[in-house]
């Protein structure tokens, strides 16, 4: 009861922090997609490069987020830009991997059929490979989005704002109401993003099969 009252009194800051959180994560995801999808496509054309890129991406995914965030500071300083940069570093890896594996796993016979119809490379890509691998790419985007929301919480530390601010303050001040006021919306945001994108992915999969 006590908490609900506290939460209600702070609804404006919760709302503005949530919007900021969504904004930072969204910018990062859009940039990640813009970088990772073309890169993923590119490495399907240069298979030798693919091995190196996919392996590096796999190793990169093991690097702790806080380490990435920390190492961005000496290079870019603090604020929104370095925070988004760190989020993008995290976000591109799953999308590169999924774009690559999505396209590589498209049935060869379908591509042959496209060629037989006289499609050019570009048409094969836009009319065959991308539509068929879209559910897999979407799964990568979903992973990247959930990751971005999570790393954005930490990015509050380097001045990105968002819900992480409330949680860090709550920890420092040992204020349980503030802690819950920051944590619960953050958790809901991540779970909601995952469920929504999961639904989109499922729908795409069904579409791809038909």
């Amino acid at each position, binding site marked *: 009861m006590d908490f609900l009252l506290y939460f209600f009194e702070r609804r404006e800051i919760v709302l503005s922090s949530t919007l900021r959180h969504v904004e930072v994560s969204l910018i990062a995801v859009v940039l990640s997609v813009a970088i990772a999808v073309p890169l993923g496509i590119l490495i399907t054309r240069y298979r030798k490069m693919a091995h190196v890129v996919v392996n590096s991406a796999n190793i990169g995914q093991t690097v702790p987020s806080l380490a990435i965030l920390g190492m961005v500071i000496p290079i870019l300083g603090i604020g929104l830009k370095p925070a988004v940069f760190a989020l993008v570093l995290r976000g591109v890896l799953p999308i590169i991997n999924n774009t690559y594996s999505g396209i590589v796993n498209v049935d060869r016979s379908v591509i042959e059929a496209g060629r037989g119809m006289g499609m050019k490379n570009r048409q094969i890509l836009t009319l065959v490979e991308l539509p068929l691998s879209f559910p897999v790419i979407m799964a990568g985007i979903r992973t990247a989005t959930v990751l971005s929301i999570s790393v954005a919480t930490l990015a509050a530390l380097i001045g990105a704002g968002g819900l992480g601010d409330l949680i860090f303050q709550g920890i420092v001040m040992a204020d349980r109401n503030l*802690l819950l006021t920051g944590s619960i919306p953050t958790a809901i945001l991540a779970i909601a993003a995952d469920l929504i994108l999961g639904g989109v992915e499922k729908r795409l999969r069904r579409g791809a099969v038909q």
Partner: protein
Amino acid sequence: MSILAYFVKNQALILKLTLEHIEITVIAVSISTLIGVIIGILITRYKRAATPVIGIAGILYTIPSLALFGMLIPFIGIGLKPTLIALILYSQLALIRNTFVGITHIDPSIREAGRGMGMSSWQFLRMVELPVALPVIMAGIRTAAVMNIGTATIAAYIGAGGLGWLIFRGIASVNTEQIVAGALPVTLLAIGVDYLFVLLERYLTPSGLRH
């Protein structure tokens, strides 16, 4: 150069924090594995529970670590306890799912052979299912270990110790050397553990199943 100097000057501290970090991870991974594998085996016996159990583990996995800490602290305080609980909760998805998939994907002919030899359900689990599923379970433990190293870094903020302490201190005091002194060892630790598990998986795959 100054970074190298910082490392040399603070080597005792860095070593101590590295050991702390490894300790937290080892404890969390051990407990997680025990719980996750048991739950994973149970849901192969009660298939109807599989989807909801894996679903709940998936939702827990989605919660950002800082938010999970934020929700645990009001009820269990700060320090090692909430840290271990959070790490264990995060690990469950990888462990339960891999155990379940590892066991349910065993070749039906292997199943038949075991049954035909008159094995009891317990013998079958111990002598067939677990050994054959072991590489897949190991892959789950690997994911959990790497993830726990990362999350343990963040737990330094709530007093769990470990290498994250240097990163948080370095960020707060705008001390690049201190940030790198935490970030570099923890990165190497994560990559090293990941590689160690690759070798272990290869070693543990029964020779009959090796490609």
